[in-house]
């Protein structure tokens, strides 16, 4: 009796002590050598919590699976620590600074999961030699690795995607030439993120002869009556939806209200998750969106997660049904790329040893996630094949397109869609110009011997 009381009393005391010890020790790099630390700086509260929590879940679950199934990367366990960024730049920077020196080798790489935070970390990551991986967001021109040695807008940038979307629309119309004279409306979130595709789409409109109208939706975008009335006036053939958060379902609802066919709306990948269509209910049916990861749980890697993690009740997601959702799977992509980069780095710098951020950056520049490798990973068809190089931090620029059938996302394009080669070149030249300007502004001398291919 007495002892149980003591135990009960003792717990909070121990907890306080423990918390204090953790707080004190957190600034230091602590001991165990066979660990590779990756920060999990995401957001679980606020307007974007649904996306953030899904991605965080997939991200962490994949690590758990790798640790459980493979015992880590060549025996080096992956560790992580969550930090709430609230999708807020200041908090994001704090999380970064807090996490960058953890683990025996510091943070291996970081996924800011916010364009704003990415911007804020570019200088810091470069100075600290910690790769900033902005997978599917962030600066498009960071593809130019000679200027941005530690920034990796992997797989696909907004610019590549815009070009790929045009390519896809061309396919839908029966060839790019058919785009001539067509009317395309870009309905975008009035922010840095929303404005990203405008230059590319404008350039391509000149090239392909479609008529582009851009319509801004002010943040947060929960009221779009006037925009859609404008769209109704324009009567476009396609609407590209470059939305974020509540703007997406609202757009679909408003489209329904104004009688615009949903299957003529094509969303960007941040407009193409379950969270973006479910609130719109039936109004979302037929809506198409891009994506650099496939939905569903049929992939071997996802199955492994269910087997090694969820079967043991160790999963991150409270709601297991969200495993396989778009955001969850996106988290898996983020994690898989991270693990792969570490593996590549280990293979180059010494197997079975934790690698530093600088080495991971090397790894990220030498990714070779071809079909074969993806198959080994159990991720074939799940994410686009990606091969990076010193001066190509993007890798592929490939996307898939999917359509909402009212209950789930269905992949429309079996193959990964890329911009046409000429368009790719055009995008690339824009990136180079932009990066050059950046280098000039910041007084950066681009790295020598940095080429597009390894």
């Amino acid at each position, binding site marked *: 009796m007495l002892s149980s009381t003591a135990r009960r009393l003792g*717990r909070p005391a*121990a*907890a*306080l002590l*423990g*918390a204090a010890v*953790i*707080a004190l020790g957190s*600034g230091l790099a602590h001991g165990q050598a066979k660990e590779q630390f990756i920060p999990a700086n995401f*957001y*679980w*509260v606020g307007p974007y*919590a649904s996306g953030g*929590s899904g991605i*965080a*879940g997939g991200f*962490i679950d994949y690590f758990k699976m790798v640790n459980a199934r493979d015992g880590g990367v060549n025996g080096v366990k992956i560790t992580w620590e*969550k*930090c*709430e960024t609230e999708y*807020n*730049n*200041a*908090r994001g*920077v*704090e999380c*970064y*600074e*807090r996490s*960058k*020196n953890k683990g025996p080798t510091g943070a291996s790489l970081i996924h800011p999961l916010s*364009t*704003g935070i990415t*911007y*804020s970390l*570019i*200088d*810091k990551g470069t*100075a*600290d030699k910690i790769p900033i991986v902005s997978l599917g967001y962030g*600066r*498009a021109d960071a593809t130019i690795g000679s200027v941005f040695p530690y920034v990796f807008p992997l797989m696909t940038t907004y610019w590549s995607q815009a070009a790929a979307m045009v390519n896809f629309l061309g396919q839908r119309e029966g060839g790019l030439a058919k785009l001539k004279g067509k009317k395309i409306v870009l309905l975008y979130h*009035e*922010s*840095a*993120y929303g*404005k*990203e595709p*405008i*230059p590319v789409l404008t350039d391509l409109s000149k090239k392909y002869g479609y008529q582009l109208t851009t319509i*801004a939706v*002010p*943040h947060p975008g929960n009221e779009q009556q006037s925009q859609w009335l404008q769209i109704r006036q324009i009567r476009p053939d396609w609407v590209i939806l470059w939305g974020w958060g509540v703007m997406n379902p609202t757009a679909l609802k408003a489209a329904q209200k104004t009688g615009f066919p949903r299957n003529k709306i094509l969303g960007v990948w941040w407009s193409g998750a379950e969270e973006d269509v479910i609130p719109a209910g039936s109004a979302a049916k037929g809506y198409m969106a891009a994506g650099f990861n496939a939905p569903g749980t049929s992939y071997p890697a996802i199955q492994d997660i269910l087997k090694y993690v969820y079967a043991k009740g160790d999963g*991150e*997601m*409270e709601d297991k049904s969200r495993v396989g959702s778009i955001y969850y799977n996106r988290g898996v992509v983020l994690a898989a790329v991270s693990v792969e980069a570490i593996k590549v780095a280990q293979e180059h710098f010494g197997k079975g040893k934790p690698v530093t951020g600088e080495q991971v950056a090397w790894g990220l520049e030498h990714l070779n996630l071809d079909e074969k490798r993806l198959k080994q990973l159990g991720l074939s068809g799940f994410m686009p094949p990606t091969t990076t190089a010193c001066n190509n931090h993007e890798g592929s620029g490939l996307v898939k397109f999917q359509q909402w059938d009212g209950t789930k996302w269905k992949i429309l394009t079996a193959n990964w869609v890329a911009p046409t080669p000429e368009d790719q070149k055009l995008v690339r030249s824009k990136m180079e110009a*932009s990066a050059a300007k*950046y280098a000039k*502004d*910041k007084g950066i001398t681009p790295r020598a011997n940095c080429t597009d291919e390894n």
Partner: protein
Amino acid sequence: MLYRETGQFKTSYAADQQIFPLRQDRIGVVATLLVAFIVVPLVANEYWLEAILIPFLVFSLAALGLNILTGYAGQLSLGTAAFMAVGAFGAYNFELRLEWMPILGSFALGGVCAAFVGILFGLPSLRIKGFYLAVATLAAQFFVVWALTHFNWFSNYSASGVITAQRIEIFGFYFLTGQSKYLLVLAIVTLLALAAKNMVRSETGRAWMAVRDFDVAAAVIGIPVMRTKLLAFAVSSFYCGVAGALYAYAYLGTVEPDGFNLDLSFRILFMIIIGGVGSILGSFLGAAFIVLFPILLNRFAEPFANAIGIDLPSGMSSNLELIIFGGLIIFFLAVEPLGLARLWQVAKEKLRLWPFPH
């Protein structure tokens, strides 16, 4: 108790009206400054400098600006972040477009731009008061962010409206490390805080407070109410503008207009309320609280919960933090509505009278 003020008599008005009439306070301030300028840069690590101290100082400056307007001149504003944005983008453009412009000049001119915008949006204050004015300042908040996003000229035609701050260089010295940036920000904040203190203890400040406390009486005395209010808007916005420039240049490096959103405005308003409305010190205390507290919560909540055996579902800890934070604000307002500065003041008064209670 520690205050021994016997024998500290003033033989001139200059001595009587100095900022810290008590010798112990002067010693305290000098010691604080010495620690801030010498000890901190020597001992603080990168994390403390870059993630805690620099934002703390920058937010303190912004809070100071808002405190001038709200605390001293009594004009409630919810547009602080907008004025910061103007400062940041203003400084960027001056630095970008005028090659000869020294960086400090750009910061100052960024502040001046913000001051002009402040005056513009302060004009309604001549007719409207209280919450009506507060909501009106939201117009500034939304309009400015819209304009900066929308007109590419401001961001030098960067595709996304994002600006990348140039490197800070003064007389050939580059401020690249956390230490040097911290010292620069600290120096600027110290000087501006001193200037603010000087203003509030002289006619300018008295006019602000007079307008705040009783505008009709102020007018009858001969204080030009209109000019006083607009001056408050201008000075306040200048401070916010410089804070914005520092936010961009010394803290984040790259900023987008969206970063200066309503949330940020509220955060700064929080700082002055928690810290103490109408108190220079309060701006600093409030900034410290708002910057540090969520971080502390974040660091402690989950380890603590784990330690006492509660397994928080992922995401729950973040929400719990929010709940605690909200609850604490309410609690705090109930306990001391006048803020941390008031607590400090009360404590100081007690110490001066020690061992007597009154």
